[in-house]
């Protein structure tokens, strides 16, 4: 039972900074590009976006606290499966609560509710923050990230609902002579609105120190940041961030594949 000595961050961020950085500076969906699937999928109406955000926040806070409490008990070699199990338990709990008390939300979110378990924000925070910090800080961090995620979901769903259906939370807002733009509630509208929102958030910070302009903005500390496969961090075989090793392996395999006459994918039966 060689539990990995957890790197306690003594000079880590203060409680206030831990909370506020998730709101805009490290906003999960607009800055770190994490959890884009629910951001795009459920934001056709404010009610759905708000519900999804709050459900994710609940899972983030609870799983953060439990992961933090168990950080000295879980051996590092099986930490990812352990984290996934903890997260899946809270997702199941959330599903039961939503099903019991908010059946309308349950029907609207559909399969995206159980899919919180593969939302990279949750696993990312467990791996990058909760497993290295005290339960109190993990809870504050989860709350900040969750609220930041909720804000961007609500913002996005407000734009899509207002333009696509002319309503907000179901109430008619737009004057009746303005035709609703149905494209906004279709998948295409989702991609377009998110693209414009991210561009806007880049523009808002343009005057501030912004050293990454072409690539995905975000903190270098984030595991998923600029990772080609942000959703795939759950890899138990790697000790460290899978990102670096993934790049190396991808480069290697691609360069090897290019040596071959027809590319790598037609060499199945050799």
């Amino acid at each position, binding site marked *: 039972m060689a539990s990995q000595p957890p790197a306690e961050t003594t000079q880590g961020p203060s409680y206030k900074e831990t909370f506020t950085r998730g709101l805009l500076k490290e906003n999960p969906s607009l800055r770190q*590009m994490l959890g*884009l*699937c*629910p951001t*795009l*999928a459920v934001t056709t109406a404010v009610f759905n976006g708000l519900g999804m955000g709050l459900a994710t926040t609940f899972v983030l806070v609870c799983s953060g606290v439990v992961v933090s409490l168990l950080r000295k008990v879980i051996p590092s070699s099986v930490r990812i*499966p352990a984290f996934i*199990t903890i997260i*899946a338990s809270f*997702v*199941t709990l959330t*599903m*039961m609560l939503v099903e019991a008390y908010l059946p309308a939300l349950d029907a609207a979110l559909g*399969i995206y509710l*159980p*899919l919180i*378990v*593969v939302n*990279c924000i949750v696993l990312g925070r467990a791996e990058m923050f909760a497993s290295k910090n005290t339960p109190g800080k993990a809870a504050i961090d989860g709350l900040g990230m969750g609220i930041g995620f909720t804000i961007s979901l609500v913002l996005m769903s407000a734009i899509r609902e207002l333009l696509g259906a002319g309503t907000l939370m179901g109430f008619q807002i737009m004057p009746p002579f303005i035709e609703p733009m149905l494209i906004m509630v*279709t*998948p*295409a509208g*989702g*991609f*377009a609105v*998110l*693209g414009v929102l*991210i*561009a*806007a958030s880049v*523009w808002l910070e343009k005057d501030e120190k912004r050293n990454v*302009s*072409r*690539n*995905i903005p975000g903190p270098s500390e984030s595991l998923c940041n600029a*990772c*080609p*496969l*942000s*959703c*795939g*961090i*759950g*890899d*138990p*075989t*790697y000790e460290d961030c*899978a990102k670096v090793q*993934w790049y190396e*392996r*991808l480069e290697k*395999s*691609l360069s*090897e*594949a290019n040596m071959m006459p027809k*590319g*790598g*994918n037609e*060499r*199945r039966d050799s």
Partner: protein
Amino acid sequence: MMAQYASILFSMILVNNFVLVKFLGICPFLGVSKKFDSAVGMGAAVTLVMVLAIAVTWPIQQLLVAWNLEYLQTIAFILVIATLVQLLEMAIKRFIPPLYDSLGVFLPLITTNCAVLGVAILTIDEGYSYPEALVAGLGAGLGFLLAMVLFSGVRRRLEEAEPPEVFRGTPITLIAAAITAMSFMGFSGVIDHLFGA
């Protein structure tokens, strides 16, 4: 009978395309679609894992229902899929090294891909029979592959374009994805006409 399977297959590929209509697997879609080779590799790996995941999770769901443990679905599925991907990676590495070179790199990174868990849950929710579920998994994977390949072509054009500065990188990629998604909207209704479903 065949028409029913064909209807499921093509509706999963075109009408209910996992990436462009259902928004599942967005991260690999945006991340790995820069190069054609990696787009094809990722798409093929996801297709393989989706079919295998359904082959395993569908019987497990029957067990869960028989034991009145449906509420464990999420936990059971994600752990089974994670284990499956791990085993698959080891097996391919051991027995088919050339395939491992082309697909292996992608395998560990799709463990927590929402598309794989999504298709497993979706086929249960739709109440598909075992062969229908497998066909749906194949369709979902092929749809993902199609979207990846198409989008890698779009991305190549984007590389040379010069959008306004704030739109560089992810935003313009999302706008391009919006236009690609719009083209897939044209497929809705096609399946009904073809198969009368």
